[in-house]
């Protein structure tokens, strides 16, 4: 089970196995309805490449901020 915290929006629990074999962080991002091109993924507050296989149980997702 992976906890995905979308900063400012809330937290969801995702079962990696439901995303297929060898899911990546990009798969996690899509599972919470974002494109990998509009967020940064942090593991232990360090950015990780989206194509890395999921190897953490807590992930923070930072959205891009829109200006006025």
């Amino acid at each position: 089970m992976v906890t995905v915290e979308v900063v400012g929006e809330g937290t969801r629990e995702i079962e990696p196995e439901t995303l297929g074999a060898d899911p990546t962080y990009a798969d996690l991002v899509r599972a919470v309805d974002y494109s990998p091109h509009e967020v940064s993924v942090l593991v232990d507050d360090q950015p990780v490449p989206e194509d890395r296989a999921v190897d953490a149980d807590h992930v923070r997702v930072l959205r891009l901020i829109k200006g006025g």
Partner: protein
Amino acid sequence: MDCDKCDDEAVMHAAYSGLHMCADHFCRSVESRTRRRVREDNLLPDDASPDDPETWLIGLSGGKDSVVLTQILHDTFAEDPRVELVALTIHEGIEGYRDESLAACRDLTEDLDVRHELVTYEEEFDLRMDDVAVEDPMDMAPCAYCGVFRRDLLSKYAAEYDADKLLTGHNLDDEAQTALMNFFEGDVEQMAKHFDASLGAFPGAADGGGDRDGTPVRVSTDGPFVPRAKPLRDVPEKEIALYAQLQDLPAHITECPHASEAYRGEIQQLLFDMEENHPGVRHSIMAGYEDLAAMAARAYRDGGGPEYGECERCGATTTRAVCRKCSLVEAVHAAD
């Protein structure tokens, strides 16, 4: 997962190039692309000198893009006596939002010792965006009013500070969105304007004003407006956010409560989907669009530009009797 350039841990993957990069190589890459764009677009003319330096006005909103732009320009040019940097921040009057971003602007410019100027809609136009958004006399999105007001002030103060160029933090996503919007709307004239106003490279001294090595250059058709440039336009938005984070830059993270550009939002989502399935789409859109816009610009220039006069009310350059900004300000106050 390691950096492709060294053995450190990778922090990002650029799908369009296939590269994985560590924090250090990634940041160097963003800086290199920005400097290359400054060089390729010939922002610093050959005749700039310590005796007659270029003044570049940076539109600094406090958001990640303009903060990153200001930082990189400072790192590149702070010791260069041919360039003077001035950061201009515009306070729109959005409760709780612009006050935070203003703090980020002050923190940054104080850290860097860059000259910083602040102007407000309240002082300039006697209005605040929170009120405009409620009144909405022209039935437009708040961004439509705000964009007109902001561009007017950027131009006005660029002229006031005698700036040679106005630099903004538009990124690859912003430009690709604009390119597709112009294309989908079939607005070829707008493409031409886009090229001559901000997209095309500046002519170099050796060019005799003509196209250089086959690279089209812009021709100023904006009358007396200060020319604009976008040094970050090769860098994807997400990479700018990552750069700001890795460099611990004081970019504010509050979202504008009035942000809502439905059509642009649709284009943005389309580009996310395309880029995910076909990495490099944004780059190829911009490469093709730049050529297309250059051709359009060449075609439209032959017809001559619009006739510029002065607004009857504020004296700003305009093609109308009263400029668009004054019309909007009047409409807002009529709705008070």
